[in-house]
């Protein structure tokens, strides 16, 4: 009956219910949107690492960020390939370049050179062409989302990067990097564009055999290559993200805006629920006089806040899904991990309960004697 009373009061007080709902929707959408952009940027930071399919990365000593690693001897590839635990080892080369657009402007790009024929970590989504297109010497990719910057790019036509000729053999779909637009090419072409010292690469990617023990293999490779940084893929991804979060102020900025979103929501919920209780003081006094205990009044207000929370979370997630769908193939970095959804829902639910505390306090402070004149 208490829940029914709570629900019926909510349905009766439409204006305050809608006000509280807006608060919850604001929390879910604003916080969710901020987090999706943050996670989108996270995915940009370590995009090559996360899509490499490798178990272990070998970089220069003390690497804290994959995008700022130094040069390694390519000979390391042969040394680690000889280990029985290793399935394959592939060198990787990447660095900055400038793409000459069709309007004779220049746009910064990130060149990623992959060794043929394996081509790891090759492009994983194509708008046109395929990975095999990169097997040819002059072949390179461009990202479809960059067309507005690069101009009218046509497949199989020649363009220039760092004054070096490349043929656009494939167009990638929504593959975005943090420090520039990604242009994939084969290792030989990348060396030519980046003018890298012969016999050097930026990183070595390693895939272990399924029978191998990852921890033991990692330790063995570390001993084999004491002058290199040997990291599990997940560790390198985490280090790269942490580096940007800490050193760019991005963490603080997004943390602050997320808190602002949550704060705005909780203020709206608190004020609307408090106002609703103020308007219903007499009803609570009647219920108290009729025999409701303070705990019964708390239950009514709590159930109201939970009903509002559940409906608001549902609508908020629906709007967030629309936002994520709408920005999926856009230049706006958005990515919302599945595991974040229950966390955001629980967080919102907790905020709703917090927002209703003041209302609860007011509701139980209503004196039943006030109903008598």
């Amino acid at each position, binding site marked *: 009956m208490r829940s029914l009373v709570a629900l019926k009061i909510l349905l009766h007080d439409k204006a305050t219910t809608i006000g509280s709902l807006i608060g919850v929707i604001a929390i879910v959408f604003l916080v969710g949107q901020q987090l999706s952009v943050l996670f989108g940027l996270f995915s940009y930071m370590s995009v090559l690492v996360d899509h490499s399919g490798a178990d272990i990365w070998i970089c220069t000593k003390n690497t804290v960020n994959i995008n700022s690693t130094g040069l390694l001897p390519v000979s390391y590839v042969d040394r680690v390939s000889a280990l029985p635990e290793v399935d394959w080892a592939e060198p990787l080369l990447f660095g900055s370049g400038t793409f000459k657009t069709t309007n004779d402007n220049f746009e910064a790009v990130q060149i990623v050179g992959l060794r043929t024929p394996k081509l790891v970590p090759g492009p994983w989504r194509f708008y046109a062409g395929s990975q095999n297109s990169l097997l040819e010497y002059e072949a390179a990719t461009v990202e479809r989302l960059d067309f507005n910057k690069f101009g009218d790019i046509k497949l199989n036509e020649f363009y220039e990067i760092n004054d070096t000729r490349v043929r656009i053999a494939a167009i990638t779909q929504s593959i975005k990097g943090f420090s520039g637009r990604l242009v994939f090419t084969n290792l030989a072409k990348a060396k030519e564009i980046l003018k890298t010292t012969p016999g050097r690469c930026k990183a070595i990617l390693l895939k272990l055999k399924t029978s191998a023990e990852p921890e033991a293999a990692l330790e063995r490779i570390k001993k084999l290559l004491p002058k290199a940084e040997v990291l599990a893929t997940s560790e390198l991804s985490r280090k790269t993200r942490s580096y940007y979060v800490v050193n760019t102020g991005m963490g603080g900025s997004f943390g602050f805006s997320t808190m602002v979103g949550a704060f705005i929501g909780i203020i709206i919920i608190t004020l609307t629920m408090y106002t609703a209780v103020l308007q219903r003081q007499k009803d609570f006094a009647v219920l108290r006089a009729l025999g409701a205990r303070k705990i019964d009044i708390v239950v009514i207000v709590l159930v109201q806040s939970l009903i509002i929370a559940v409906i608001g979370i549902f609508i908020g997630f629906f709007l967030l899904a629309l936002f994520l769908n709408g920005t999926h193939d856009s230049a706006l970095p958005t990515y919302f991990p599945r595991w974040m959804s229950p966390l955001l829902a629980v967080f919102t639910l907790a905020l709703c309960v917090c927002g209703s505390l003041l209302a609860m306090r007011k509701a139980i402070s209503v004196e*039943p004697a006030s109903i008598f004149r």
Partner: protein
Amino acid sequence: MITEPILQLSGVARDFFDGKTQRRVLQKIDLAISPGEFTIVAGPSGSGKTTLLTIMGLILKPSEGDVFIRSEKVTGYPESKMASIRLQHYGFVFQLAELLPALSVFDNVVVANGIQGKSISSALKKKAKDLLESFGLQNMFHAKPLQLSGGEKQRVAIARALINDPTVLLCDEPTSALDAESSTIVMDSLKRLSQDNTRGIIMVTHDPRVFPYADRLIKLENGAIASDSKSSS
């Protein structure tokens, strides 16, 4: 035959503190209400009628003295226990009915029974319907209080007060906001209910037109009982 009082006040006094001075609004009052008695407490404004009613209704705690329900001393019980006693033993009819506007007439009647988390049994639903029918409200079950007249609201309030078969029915000037015709209907209903020897009805009013309904008329002046008379009928 001597019957046990259903409600008894022993030396009950009440002080109010206005921030500077303490004022005694109810002098030491001794009072016993018997079952089947329709008691009207009357007196001018400020005489302490409502304070007495709220103390009898276990809503306000007395500054001095004790309250007994069927010989059980309830003074000093914690707030939650007082609420449960109110739920079990009391029915309230307020001056302006005070129905919950969000609930239907039917839900307003059963709300007290379920307010401590109990589910509403089918027997109780039938009882609520019977009560509403007995007050001529059979076509109003699903109506909202806003759709009712003042007299209809007050009859719903009486049905709500009776749903738990209270030992004591406390009425706070239930006719003061009603027209003459509605007042008569409400007073007739209360008089009919007072014939039931299992409960007592206490009504606070300053309207002398309703005095003839009373079995007992208590007049308060300056927080003390000025007269306590029983009708001969």
